[in-house]
């Protein structure tokens, strides 16, 4: 069984937002909403400042609070550890929106909750998610963490990395190389 996830090289990301546009186009994300976005984090004291640019989305956690709090089972863990929402089961109670520490979910204008799916339809065809496939600096990597020979596993063996708020206990599956 695969365990999909992403590795993002913050040393390469220039914040061009191509990933955001690709996602909106591929998944027909409605105007005014986004499944992925850019975060520009600056830490330090002038002139010693450190800026990290990173592309963020649902972390497809191993311990996903959104799945546990869903009253209808609409939020679920699919093959490969991808966290998905079944639209026909979602009642739009927004418990999952409130439970996500990454604020990764939104309510689609049609009423159900939506979020990043890792472009599951593309993954099933053996392709990378749309955001990964268009990145002009090749800072995004998608793959199987259960396979020690995969590119994402090797990157985590070779480079320093961090996840976003792992202390929330959600076991996120997107890692940022630093």
């Amino acid at each position, binding site marked *: 069984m695969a365990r999909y996830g992403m590795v993002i090289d913050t040393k390469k990301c220039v914040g061009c937002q191509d990933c955001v546009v690709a996602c909106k186009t591929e998944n027909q994300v409605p105007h005014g909403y986004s499944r992925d976005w850019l975060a520009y984090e600056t830490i330090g004291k002038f002139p010693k400042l450190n800026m990290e640019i990173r592309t963020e989305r649902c972390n497809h956690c191993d311990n996903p609070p959104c799945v546990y709090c869903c*009253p209808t089972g609409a939020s679920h863990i699919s093959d490969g550890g991808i966290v998905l929402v079944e639209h026909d089961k979602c009642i739009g109670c927004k418990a999952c929106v409130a439970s996500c520490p990454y604020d990764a979910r939104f309510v689609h204008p049609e009423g159900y909750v939506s979020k990043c799916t890792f472009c599951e339809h593309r993954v099933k065809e053996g392709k990378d998610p749309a955001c990964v496939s268009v990145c002009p600096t090749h800072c995004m990597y998608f793959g199987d963490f259960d396979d020690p020979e995969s590119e994402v596993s090797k990157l985590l063996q070779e480079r320093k990395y961090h996840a976003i708020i792992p202390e929330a206990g959600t076991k996120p599956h997107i890692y940022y190389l630093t």
Partner: protein
Amino acid sequence: MHELIITRSNHLIDPIFTPWGWEIPIYLFLGGLVAGMMIISGYFILSGRHQKKDCSCFVVPTVALALISIGMTALFLDLEHKLYVWRLYTTFQWTSPMSWGAWILLLVYPILTLNAILKIPENIAKKLPWLKNIGEKLSGRKFAVKVIGAMSMISGGILGMYTGVLLSTLVARPAWNSSMLWILFLVSGLSAAAAFIHLFAKREDERRLLAKADNGFLIAELMIVALIIIGFLTSSEVQNAAAMLFINGPYAAVFWVFVVGLGMVVPLFIQLFAVNDKIQHTPIAPIMVMVGGLILRFVIVSAGQYSGWFTGTFTTP
């Protein structure tokens, strides 16, 4: 400096996290109030008070049925995918407090109905004689009455607890993430219910008992509030920041003035004077308790949404 700029588009989250509006606090308040009413009504039945003339335990369940229905309407209005609400009853998700709540609410209705028909008002009895017959048959069986009283207390307790558990399990919102929130909501519900029944109880001895009980609930509530804040202050950084929301942050004024001051401390003193026969029983104190309980739900729901792992980082130097 520590600055985070996010380009996300999500009107429920950016710039301030607000997926839940007025509907949820209204529902939580009415759910807690009904829970308290069920516990008190069940206690009156089990303690034999229901045999006394004009016992309020026969009016309480009818009013509670109306109140919980209003609460559930508010909950329904909050749903974004309303036509799919029936999905709640096609499954039971044991890890989801909301799923538990949906089924608990289904349990509450028949128990409240059974409690209500034990002695139905004369005007309804004339229109629905068959209902009166069922009620008389039920109330003639002591064991059945006791079972209804016990069921009322148990299901009321579960309902009251669940309203707090619903929020406290959402780990992403530090201001809700207290294992004591369910106790606060349960005791607050009991306090509001005692105050509410006090308003329309016909018997003097009931009003006196409810005022005394409410004083106990208010003292317990003050202690629980203190323990929750101490719990936050002695926990992680984000929960420290959550505590500061109530201590000196944007929710401090409304919390200390309207929830703790006018909703707990002042009515506690008024009722202490009343039960010690220094002043007459007044509806002012119960009304203050109920309004305080309602504002408490609004403050908790709003502060929880304001708090988060990212905001927590930035509100603490």
